[in-house]
């Protein structure tokens, strides 16, 4: 009881702090100095129609690299976290219930979903969406597979090679920026192309494709790992 009232007091206290922020908050009328720069020069500097993508991949490219790393790191940690003591059990998996309709439906849906995902990340610099979103969609296809199919043929080796390949390529593209263009992660290692087309915005589409692949494989890997653990029990 004492504890609950303490918690209540604490929450009320936090709420009071939030309230003072809230009271002080006035909605913005115009963009801040940095955003204004992006809005006015984004088109020329990056060449991506989607300004958010321009910010994500180029202006704040290092953040995105970190973001990718976080996913990669989480996946890696989950990998060894789950595996450490269970190496010997991994062989004898138990077959779970399986529905024919679901399985067949999934087999039809999976390629379509993957295609959608690929579309989303390939067009990331033009339309809403991007590598993360596309990657998540691709991963959802694999999730569907994992749920629907009896022995999902999830080859972790292949996943991790794709993952590593895309990650490494991302870093290398970033480094190419140092050599070929103005700095790390500069997208102008390739020509900016025509504004608004697929082949525009320099390396942005390439990066987004890599991110899409990477995110897709990573999320799949995480869920696959969890799934396998579940199977063991």
């Amino acid at each position, binding site marked *: 009881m004492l*504890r609950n009232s*303490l*918690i209540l007091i*604490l929450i009320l*206290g*936090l709420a*009071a*702090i939030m*309230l*003072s*922020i809230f*009271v*002080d*908050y006035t909605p*913005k009328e115009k963009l*801040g*100095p*940095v955003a204004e720069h*992006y809005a006015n020069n984004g088109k020329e*500097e990056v060449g991506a129609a989607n300004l958010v993508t321009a910010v994500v991949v*180029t*202006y*704040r*490219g*290092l*953040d995105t*690299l*970190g*973001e990718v*790393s*976080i996913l*990669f*790191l*989480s996946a*890696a*940690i989950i*990998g*060894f*976290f789950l*595996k*450490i003591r269970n190496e010997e059990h991994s062989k004898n998996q138990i077959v779970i219930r399986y529905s024919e309709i679901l399985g067949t439906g999934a087999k039809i849906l999976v390629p379509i979903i993957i295609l959608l995902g690929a579309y989303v990340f390939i067009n990331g610099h033009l339309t809403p969406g991007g590598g993360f979103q596309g990657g998540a969609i691709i991963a959802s296809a694999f999730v569907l597979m994992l749920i629907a199919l009896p022995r999902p043929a999830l080859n972790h080796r292949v996943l*991790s*090679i794709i*993952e*590593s*390949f895309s*990650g*490494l390529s991302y*870093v*290398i593209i970033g*480094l190419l920026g*140092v050599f070929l*263009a*103005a*700095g*790390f*992660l*500069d*997208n*102008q290692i390739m020509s900016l192309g025509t504004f608004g087309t697929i082949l525009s915005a320099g390396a942005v589409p390439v990066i987004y494709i890599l991110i899409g692949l990477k995110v897709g494989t990573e999320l799949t890997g995480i869920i696959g790992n969890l799934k396998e653990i579940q199977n063991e029990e």
Partner: protein
Amino acid sequence: MVDPIYIVAVLLGISFSLGFIGKKSENIAGILSLLALGFTTLVSAQWFYNFVTADIETYHIFTTAFKPPFSINLMMGKEEALFTMMINAIGLFGGLYMFDRLKAAGKNSFIALLMLIMGLNVVVMTRDLFNLFVFLEISSIAVAGLIVLTQNTKSISAGFKFMIATGIISGLLLLGIAFIYNYAGSLNIDHILTQNLEAAKGLSIAIFFLMIAIVLEMKPFPANGWGLDVYSSAESGVSSLLSSAYATATVFVLMKLLPFAPENLQFLIAAIGIITFVFSNLMGMRQDNPNRMLGYSSISQIGLLAAVIGISSVIGEYTYFIVISILISHFLAKSGLFWIAGIVKQESIKNWSVLRSNKLLLVLFGVFIFALTGLPPFPGFFGKWELVMHLAETKNFIWIFAVLIGSFFEVVYMFRWLGYAVKNDIIIETKLKAKIHQIIPLLLFAAAAFGAGYYVSSEHPYASLINYLPLAVALGFAFIEFLPVFIKNTLAIAAMAAYFYFNYESYNELQVIFAAIFIIGGILTLIAGYAYKGKRQGFYPFALMMFAGLIGLVEATTTLEFFFAWELMTIGSYFLILRGKKSIKHALSYILFSIGGAYLILAGFGLAAIGKPDISIGILSNIELYAPWIFGLLAIGFMTKTASIGLHIWLPGAHAEAEADVSPMVSAILLKAGVFGLIMLFLAMGEQFIGNISFAYILSWVGVITALMGNMMAAFQEDAKRLLAYSSIGALGYVLFGLSLMSHLGWLTAISFSVTHFMFKALLFLAIGGVVWRLKTKDMYKMGGLIKKMPFSFISVLIGIIVLAGVPPLTGFAGKWLFFQAVVEKQWFLQGAVLFFSGIIAFLYCFRLIHSIFLGQPKDEHRNVKEAPFWILVPQYAILMVIMLFSMLPNSLLKPIGDMLMPYFPDGAITWDGQMATTALGYWNGKTVMFIVVGVFAIVFGWLVFMNRNAKKVKQFNIGYAAERPFLPETTHYAFNFFAPYKKAIGFLVAPGITNFWHRVDEGAHSVSDKFTKIYNGNAQSYLIHIVAFILVIYLISFGGF
């Protein structure tokens, strides 16, 4: 130079490409990772080197083609270079240390390691708030992954607590960043700071969240249970990463973001830091698990750094120096200690005696403990010094107190731990084997600790003046430990003799006197070392370190040098004392009192330096502010070494349990360091007053009570060496009293008595040491009748006690005579009477000593004992000759001292006419007294010999014992509880009140510590409540309302 962006690129690239590597090739993954870390370490080291040597300009790394604030930029300055170097190094060596653990966990664990280091690198270098957030998240997730490297309930639940807590913290960080962006329209730190933002409440709350999140990342008390649990349950290697790498980076972040915080928040952070420092160390005292204890220590150190950073506006330009010195010490030592803990794998520090099975680890352990506790020559020492100096300069006295008390708590548990490792009786049969990849990082870090100490001191305007030669020689002996005692002893004596020979001409009279006590005395006692066989490992480096410290005291020209030497001497002597039997407790109380005293001295020096342009010793002589305080602090500090009453409880055990030649070193020589300090203090500051009462008057009472109690306790001891130890307490009471007289005669007495005390106490301790050497017992009542077996030792003791008792005609009387001349002149009769009384009590124990050991009935089992070893006798007889010389010619000792005192105390000097000393009150002629006594003695002796020329020698047992033969030597030898009636009459005066007092202080501190640790109940939600409550409280304090 290599662009720092490669640090990020290489670490990321390698960790991404680890995915290509197959399951069975963890070795390749590991080696690749280490190579990557090695590369990054080299890169940042190269930058740091260039910053230091070439003073190049700060380098900005821009990502993409755009300039900040439009893109994220990194910065590589001198500080960044240093911090990334530290982080990369701990990554490299921590990885090397954990290599087999990581390998066993698979290549993904290497990814976690690389990511952690990469994240922290960017955290240090980035100039963008959100980027900081992202990479901080990477690091904390990586830590969360590494925690479960060993999987058990403890580590998993600790990891969960860690994740939940950092989740909330980083959420709040993000909240703060979001609203800062809302108000500033930018995320670039420099850009935000250069804008003149209007002061909005929302902005200040946002900044509050930003800062509080960073502070919480540093695990402030009491919102730090989650961190502690991680320290105590994770793999040691991981804890070392958390403590050294992660915490280092957060320290840097705090430095980086500090300009955001308004002044009051800065001070609040400082206050949080110092509270964390004090309380974590307080709670560390009750810890038994080494990892958790190190956790408390880590948190406290980081708290201290937060405090320093928080008050950087007060400290000024030296903040960087202080932070770096303390941090480097912490960094190196804490990693080293965690690593060693990982090798030892004992859950309780009591079992660390197992460390003794691996000498190298033991040495490294000692080095790290000393580095951590801020003792010289490690960088933390200079950091702490500078910190206290600046706190004093700016009159933040509470802060000084907090810093010192917190450090003291740390010393308590660290040295208890060290004591257990070196000396605890628990025997564990396993032999510790460290793998080579674990030893290399430890060795490198230990070497780096020395190197960093040297580097830091060379950056300091005064520390660079310190004479490292003696210390270097002492440490050099560590490398020839494989040689036999004979060679090492000769080398040591030669080194000391050479040092004295080449330097003594540059000393003034006072310095010569004390240098002679320290060095010549040291050589004399070292001679006894020839009696030892084998290698006597661990003796010479510390003995010489102690002497290096002592000579450093004499030579010191600045307060820093003095303090450095003081601490050095403490370390050396601590180990010498620790070498003795059953010495754990005594060595611990010795080091605690010494360090406590040293801290008082430090505080005193700090106060003394207020408003002074430099820190030369001379500043003491012209103090305007706080003079009584300075005097009091320094005096009490020095009195811990002279073991004045109240501060004496460490001495008896420490001196009694020491080895045969160490006892005289610590008792006859080391105590004089305190005397030297007091002399220096009195000379510089003269008489000081609290209100109307003179300090000197108070000290005079302290002195006489010390003398009385010391001597009385000595009379009631059964243990011969303990008796002598208490006698030393008493003797130092005399010296203190003499100094407090503040007159020519008083000082003449005190200084000459110091010399005399050296001689007779060295003589007695060596002689008794020789006896104990042969008999293997220190209990006097178990001895008896040894005069026939050990006639040479007997003569030493006889002369020793005659000098001690001050009976004419030997030189001891000179001390007594001078004392009373001085007392009557000063008219302090009550003190004089007590002093006389204690002088008579000295007879009691003198007699007891010689009677119980050498006279009376010999025991059967001692029928075959031999005379004490030759080499122990040699220094005794050398001293004996000097005693006889001074007895015959007292002015050969007294006159030079008197002349030396003339400039300070011109009045009341002794007039010398040959050996005839005259004062205003009385006179004394040592030479004629000697002649008369010897003459009468010779005549009477001749007469007796003539009368009894045919006396028959009989066996000792042949006594007229009520017509019966006595029963057993044991029952016939009246020696046990020798002064029983006396004890009955006035024994209540020496009831162990002071010891009990200190015991209660000790217990009190531990139970308080125990109470506080109860807040860490292990429940993740309680920890979250702590965090939220902490935020709320700090918010309320900072804003004074909502």
